[in-house]
């Protein structure tokens, strides 16, 4: 039997909320965890004194000292490599790669080491580490400040890959990631750092303070891993998405008038299959939306899973809306980014089939 969508767990006594941007929510998550657990250490390039190029670690070094939050040399392999060693010692490192586009030098440490350590040593050593990396486009970031490399992580057994779409989830998921004893790749859509973004780049950005999801409890709470959220309930088709595209899909539903049920995966892999299947079996139609390039993107896995499990309920081919199979361009930002028009067109195709 299909399970219900898992609800966030909040400790009642600490549930005093205040408006936060995603940046503030992520900072609050690290602040809470550094306060609760002296084994939590935070480091990366420009993360210490300066507080991060996106301000996500601002004030943590002043509050917890240089041995808990510190700057590192510019070496992604080194950042992750020493984190693996610290994890083996018994610490709980939360490290930052400045842009997801720059994780590649750390690939060996992530894939060959962090992901495999528990399995290869039969639990003798573990990697309870969290690797934060700002990801995604829509900011004129060009080739190396816009990528969405999640499929390169979801293919790696032993990793957990997570991406929030709003401040509330960002804090709750990051706390869950830090507490998790498995290595977690925590992807932060930088386009959503200061406010939600529905793909209408021609309109002014609305800050998180104007949105209910920008209301974040100040203390400890978690949003569980492997739990998707029904971002927008609907009846006509199911949208499987995450990150910025959650907001784009919501906009496309509004503009097309199609009653789409939007599932924000939150945990990309391992994922909450029950919530996905429950929705698709109900609507009979499915559109997968992500910013990452299409071929062998995570949408292919989602599409295959839905096809395997919902074949007899499907009334139309599964649509995939994704970035083109090209490097992320600069001048052609909005021709590349899958905006509400492209997503809406896919909704219509799915409904007409």
């Amino acid at each position: 039997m299909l399970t219900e969508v898992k609800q966030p767990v909040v400790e009642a006594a600490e549930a005093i909320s205040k408006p936060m941007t995603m940046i503030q929510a992520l900072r609050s998550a690290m602040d809470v965890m550094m306060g609760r657990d002296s084994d939590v250490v935070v480091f990366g390039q420009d993360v210490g004194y300066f507080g991060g190029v996106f301000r996500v670690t601002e004030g943590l070094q002043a509050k917890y000292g240089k041995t808990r939050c510190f700057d590192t040399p510019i070496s992604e392999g080194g950042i992750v490599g020493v984190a693996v060693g610290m994890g083996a010692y018994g610490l709980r490192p939360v490290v930052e790669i400045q842009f997801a586009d720059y994780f590649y030098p750390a690939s060996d440490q992530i894939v060959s080491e962090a992901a495999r350590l528990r399995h290869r040593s039969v639990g003798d050593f573990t990697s309870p580490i969290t690797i934060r990396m700002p990801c995604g486009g829509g900011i004129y970031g060009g080739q190396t400040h816009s990528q969405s490399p999640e499929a390169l992580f979801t293919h790696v057994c032993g990793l957990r890959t997570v991406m929030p779409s709003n401040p509330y989830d960002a804090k709750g998921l990051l706390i869950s990631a830090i507490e998790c004893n498995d290595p977690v790749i925590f992807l932060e859509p930088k386009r959503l750092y200061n406010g939600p973004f529905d793909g209408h780049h021609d309109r002014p950005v609305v800050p998180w303070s104007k949105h209910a999801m920008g209301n974040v409890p100040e203390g400890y709470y978690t949003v569980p891993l492997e739990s998707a959220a029904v971002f927008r309930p609907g009846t006509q088709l199911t949208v499987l998405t995450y990150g910025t595209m959650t907001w784009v899909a919501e906009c496309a539903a509004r503009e097309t008038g199609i009653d789409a049920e939007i599932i924000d995966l939150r945990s990309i892999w391992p994922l909450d299959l029950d919530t996905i299947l429950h929705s698709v079996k109900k609507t009979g139609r499915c559109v997968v939306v992500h910013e990452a390039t299409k071929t062998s993107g995570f949408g292919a896995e989602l599409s295959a899973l839905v096809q395997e499990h919902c074949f007899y309920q499907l009334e139309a081919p599964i649509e995939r809306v994704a970035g083109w199979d090209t490097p992320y361009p600069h001048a052609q930002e909005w021709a590349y980014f899958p905006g509400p028009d492209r997503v809406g067109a896919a909704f219509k195709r799915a409904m007409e089939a």
Partner: protein
Amino acid sequence: MSAHTALRLHVPEPSGRPGCVTDFSYLQLSGAGIVRKPPVDTSHFDTTDLAYALISVLDHDDRAVGPWAPEIDSTRLRKGLRAMMKTRIFDARMTIAQRQRKTSFYMQCYGEEAIAIAQAAALQQGDMCFPTYRQQGLLLSRDDVSMSELICQLMSNEADPMKGRQLPVFYSYKRAGFFSISGNLATQYPQAVGWAMASAIKGDTRIASAWIGDGATAESDFHTALTFAQVYRAPVILNVVNNQWAISTFQAIAGGESSTFAARGVGCGIASLRVDGNDFLAVFAASQWAAERARSNQGPTLIEWVTYRAGGHSTSDDPSKYRPADDWERFPLGDPIERLKRHLIVMGAWSDQEHVEVQRELEVEAAAAQKEAESHGTLLDGRVPSAATIFDGVYESMPDHLRRQRQELGV
């Protein structure tokens, strides 16, 4: 037309190929006892000469001479000699077991026994080593790790602590300060630095010992580890075992031509030593010096151990295809077991007769350990851990997709 002559690509070559005789003059050896010993709080800059020299303690008359001659009693030296003999016997026996197909693969440390074993003697309980696949001496020098358990890992049998998941020799012994071995070269080097940083963050007194070969110093993680170790003054010993060969590739191709690996440490701001790796006393003394530096917050030390890979790279390798067959006999630093044995005899703490007796005793012990291990199965008889266990431990708790896949396998 350019006034310059045509450029030429330089590709280093070893002097000795099959059928030739190696010219070992490139090793730049120093005499025993002549290299100075600085205080443990020395600056990295003040070790420059040491990074290009060679620290040796045992002279041609098998006596311990010079400032690096350690204060170590004969009981500990006898224990060290015994551990080296045990390691060589174990390696020989397991190489045969591979030929008999009881295990799929093996790697011996023939000729390099002194390095891991003497360093282990200079470390303390609780320190953590991040070894490569050629530091089995770290385990075989311990009384609390049984040979039969190691053989179970090599045979991937029903009692294998690694449950058949890992290639033979990829041990993991947290309780013995031996980090899980990975097939990916050099990855353990920054991890060791991170472990040492963690110990410093927590105000601990334990230190880390990192291990790498000459060939693997070319991996980016080597450079990364040196940078992080220097920046954070991590309490770590950065060991580079220069056995002259990376499979078929001479150390010159790794960047060793006209330079030393120890010199790289100085260039990164790390106090560095270049030490005779076949001289048990020199290895012990240098390890003790580096451990004391680390434990007293003086930061990291890099040590290049000059030795020779006497055996094949692995059981899948035939060195006669790329180097002279008699290279090991001609290697100027000799055999670490022979050298310590002669030293102990000169001291009156060992004899040829005792050597023969211990040799026989260890061979009986190794044979018994193998028999015990084989009672739990071998790769040959297929008594391996259950296939159901391959899904365990990928994550702390098993996600749904792995549960489904395990059911699909029907186990």
